[in-house]
């Protein structure tokens, strides 16, 4: 558990080529971080799926040769991920989308930001232990 100081907050950043081949790296890193935050095994499995969906959504919008910028914010019992890319003309988020349904079910919070030149999906997950 991350215990240095009450309410300690840590940030982790990862920049990857916006290419599906790197999605596994993001998944692995996320699982590793969640394990250190004392998420349960079930939470971590959910997180893997949620991160896959997030990455899939962002990759769809990425410009040619763009980067995937992943910013994690780690708080006790909570993990937030802001996954963004450069996107000249991002499509409007479709909240009826199957992937989006999956994402909102698995996360405690999920949002999309689509502005010209920028596309980001943000998700937050709380550990089951923390909400009990």
């Amino acid at each position: 558990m991350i215990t240095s100081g009450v309410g300690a907050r840590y940030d982790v950043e990862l920049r990857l080529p916006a290419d599906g081949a790197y999605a596994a790296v993001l998944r692995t890193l996320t699982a590793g971080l969640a394990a250190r935050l004392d998420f349960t095994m079930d939470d971590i499995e959910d997180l893997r799926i949620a991160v896959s969906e997030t990455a899939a959504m962002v990759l769809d919008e990425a410009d040619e040769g763009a980067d995937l910028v992943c910013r994690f914010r780690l708080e006790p019992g909570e993990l937030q991920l802001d996954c963004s890319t450069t996107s000249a003309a991002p499509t409007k988020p479709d909240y009826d989308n199957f992937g989006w349904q999956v994402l909102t079910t698995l996360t405690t919070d999920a949002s999309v930001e689509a502005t010209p030149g920028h596309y980001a999906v943000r998700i937050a997950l709380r550990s089951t232990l923390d909400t009990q």
Partner: protein
Amino acid sequence: MTKEATQDSGRSAALEQTRRENLRLFAIFRDPDASESERSAAREDLVHLHLALVEHCARRFRNRGEPFEDLVQVGTIGLIKSVDRFDTERGVEFSTYATPTIIGEIKRYFRDKGWAIRVPRRLQELRMQISGATSELTQTLGRSPTPREIADAIGCSVEEIIEGMESSNAYATLSLDATDDSDDGGPSMLDAIGIDDEALEHVEIRESVKPLLESLPPREKKILLLRFFKNMTQSEIAAEIGVSQMHVSRLLTRTLEQLRASLDHD
């Protein structure tokens, strides 16, 4: 004679018969004067005689993701080895001698052949410890354990658990052109790869998801519904359906990938 002994007398009579048959067959099998065909017939009969022992051993490993028939098959190799090596002079029961060999063979199968990708033995053993500790802790805690709790139970570090979790994803990999288990053959992984996702955003998904859900195999559909509509955790689903949580996780991931792929085809 005690009460239990009376109750068991029927069973022990059968055991006694098996024992006598066993001795008779071994006598032929080991007889230097017996013909080659007599000896090989005795060997075959011995294997058949003790096949129930193999099934008994294989049953203990049934819930580990490998087909029961496959386990019986590898266990039988252990049985054949035991028949060939058993020393009747030793004075131990054949079953006492054969059981460790049969179980050893089944375990080796899990260790060496069960893995789709070669994973170092240390990690394979760690994975088994993790899945054992996970189900045990899920029972005692009444919820899914954290990696730290598993690490404490096994006596290793959280880092090692994370490593083990990663390696567990290599236990069952899918062939790229493998379809699902149903006979009519759904879309394969290959169909899900290298396709343009752009149209996905524009599809009126809610309408198209329905027929896709209907086309899923019953178990996959149930898992999906339990997870996303009843909001059950993977462990709860595992308990409800009677498979391991790892298995639920794999099925769920695969189903979602299939749905994504199918959506894109329409």
